[in-house]
């Protein structure tokens, strides 16, 4: 018999990871109406920053060799810089373009980053000895709790609270939302809108850095495509949570992760292969019942 509490914990841990990615997707969507597929590549690049860029399959460590506070800082800084660069070069000139154009431009950015990374590192997955101690599980009352997952959950909850406060209560948060909705009008009110939006991207880079560290600590591997599925799941999460609502994004991410684990745990063996189909069917179902998502933001409503 499966230990139900253990399953719940597993579910919550994966849910938190997706929630963290979804938070970044939701944040950038909130400030630019952009579903940023390149978010996945930010985190891939962050992970690869741990090793020296070479074609070798067993590369020496770069940031990964530093004491952990410096390593974290190095990875976060890398992700933030990449996020800012993509904002400046690709997304800023496209501000206020229609959503399809924005979306496609983020594909292009993602395609670029992925293949540039591939040119440097080759497509072969690499492995890295990092955070093994964090990956170890501790046993609490018979429930196995891997350190990474504990950290993931704590980080997710605190960042969610932090971001909601930032956006709702601080001047820069309100300015960010204003610039998101109507860039020109925000400028007419004296908001330094370019900086404010860049700040939003920096935050998404920050989140990407955190996720890449957590992922690497969990899997110990680097792969050019490691960002894709988390971002796809986060993408679903943001929409079922309610586009433009951070709490919604986090909730959506949580839900997607939890569903995936519960299906994995409780589906009969023959159907387990179809686990993901279940998750995606759930996405469609949620949208049919609540087309604006679980926590619709006021942005998504329209007065006639």
């Amino acid at each position, binding site marked *: 018999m499966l230990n139900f509490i*253990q399953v719940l914990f597993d579910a919550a841990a994966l849910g938190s990871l997706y929630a963290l990615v979804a938070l970044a997707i939701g944040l950038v969507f909130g400030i630019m109406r952009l579903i940023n597929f390149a978010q996945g590549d930010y985190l891939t690049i962050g992970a690869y920053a741990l090793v020296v860029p070479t074609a070798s399959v067993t590369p020496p460590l770069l940031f990964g060799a530093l004491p952990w506070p410096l390593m974290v800082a190095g990875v976060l800084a890398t992700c933030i810089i990449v996020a800012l660069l993509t904002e400046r070069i690709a997304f800023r000139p496209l501000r206020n373009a229609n959503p399809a154009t924005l979306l496609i431009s983020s594909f292009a950015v993602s395609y670029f980053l992925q293949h540039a990374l591939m040119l440097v590192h080759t497509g072969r997955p690499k492995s890295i000895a990092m955070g093994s101690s964090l990956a170890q599980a501790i046993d609490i009352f018979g429930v196995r709790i891997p350190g990474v997952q504990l950290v993931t959950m704590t980080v997710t909850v605190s960042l969610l609270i932090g971001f909601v406060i930032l956006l709702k209560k601080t001047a820069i948060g309100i300015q960010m939302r204003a610039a998101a909705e109507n860039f020109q009008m925000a400028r007419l009110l004296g908001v330094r809108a370019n900086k404010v939006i860049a700040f939003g991207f920096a935050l998404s880079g920050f989140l990407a850095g955190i996720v890449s560290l957590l992922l690497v600590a969990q899997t110990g591997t680097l792969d050019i495509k490691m960002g894709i599925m988390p971002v796809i799941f986060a993408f679903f999460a943001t929409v079922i949570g309610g586009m433009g609502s951070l709490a919604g994004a986090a909730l959506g991410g949580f839900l997607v992760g939890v569903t995936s684990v519960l299906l994995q745990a409780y589906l009969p063996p023959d159907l387990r292969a179809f686990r993901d189909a279940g998750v995606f069917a759930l996405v469609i179902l949620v949208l049919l019942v609540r087309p604006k998502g679980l926590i619709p933001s006021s942005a998504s409503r329209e007065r006639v």
Partner: protein
Amino acid sequence: EEKPIQIGFAIAESGWLHNYDGPPFKAAVMRIEEINKAGGLNGRKIEYKVIDTKTERERSATAGAELVEAGVDLLVVSCDYDFGAPAALAGNQAKIITMSLCAADPKMGVQGVGPYAFTANSAAQSEGIAIAEYAQKKLGLKTAYVLEDLTIEYNKSACAGFRAAWINGGGEASILGNDTFKNDDPSIAAQITRLKSLPTQPDAVFVCSFTPGGASAVRQIRAAGVELPILANTAMVDNYWLNSAPGLKNFYLAAFMSLYGDDPRPEMNKFVEDHKARWNEAPVSSYAVLGYSLIEQWAYAVEKAGGTDSDKVLEVMNTYKDQPFLVGPTSYTPELHIQTARPWLIMKVENESFRAVEIYRNSFTPSMELLFRVGN
């Protein structure tokens, strides 16, 4: 002077498949150069030409067609069945011997691509069979748990082979359970929970996967405190991923050869040395030897047939019965163009490296049903 023999390679020089095509290709070039240095094949020099498929099926088909058009005598295609097949089809339709560097799927052969298609590799099923038999007979393990990565067909085949062999040796009840995951799952916590909640723990876990997902799974299993022996399929061979599971022990698989100088067959160790001399590095992957033997196998048949005429060469190759080549004894029949019982080098992980254990040849051979995975 006779016209040189042409070999065409429709393989990936970029994209993810390059990692798999690259090493055997280099080894194949080594063999070609050796033959040329020794005076050529039947007195004719061998030339070769490569067209990059960029890990795309469309490119693969085009590359195949172009090489056929250029009149190659042997067409070599990608490691992977899915990406090699489009090119192989072109070769087969033109009745040119077509060989895959390391596809592990019997459909790269008579029943799938056609009668002129071969693969230098063994069937994925036999990887599972070999390690299952070895674990039961030599390691004395009685029960097993199977963790199956559903992402690609190769894994499913390896798992099918493992299950069949394990049940053959220990009965239905000796498999304590099955679970599935996907290569890009960020976490397999739920699978580990199921494993740990089994009423009795198995003697071993068989993980059929490939990197990076396989490496990540091994790391997570060990991090969760599961110290059971882990058995794996051949794709997990070679040291490059061991960083992700520091201090890994009790990990076994069936491989072609050892890159680390401890292969019980001296000719293998010489191969590694030659490779270092030619390419300034040891082979990146032990799959390399398959490329070397691919050329060996075809060249031998050409010599025997006295020319490159496809039908004659085919006839010779179809009669190989434990024909000795570097990678090991090789057999083909008119029905089957893949190895099912070539001896394996069992390897285990110790002190952060793979170590050769011993050569082992499986006695249980997969039936056609198992090879084509009918009824599972």
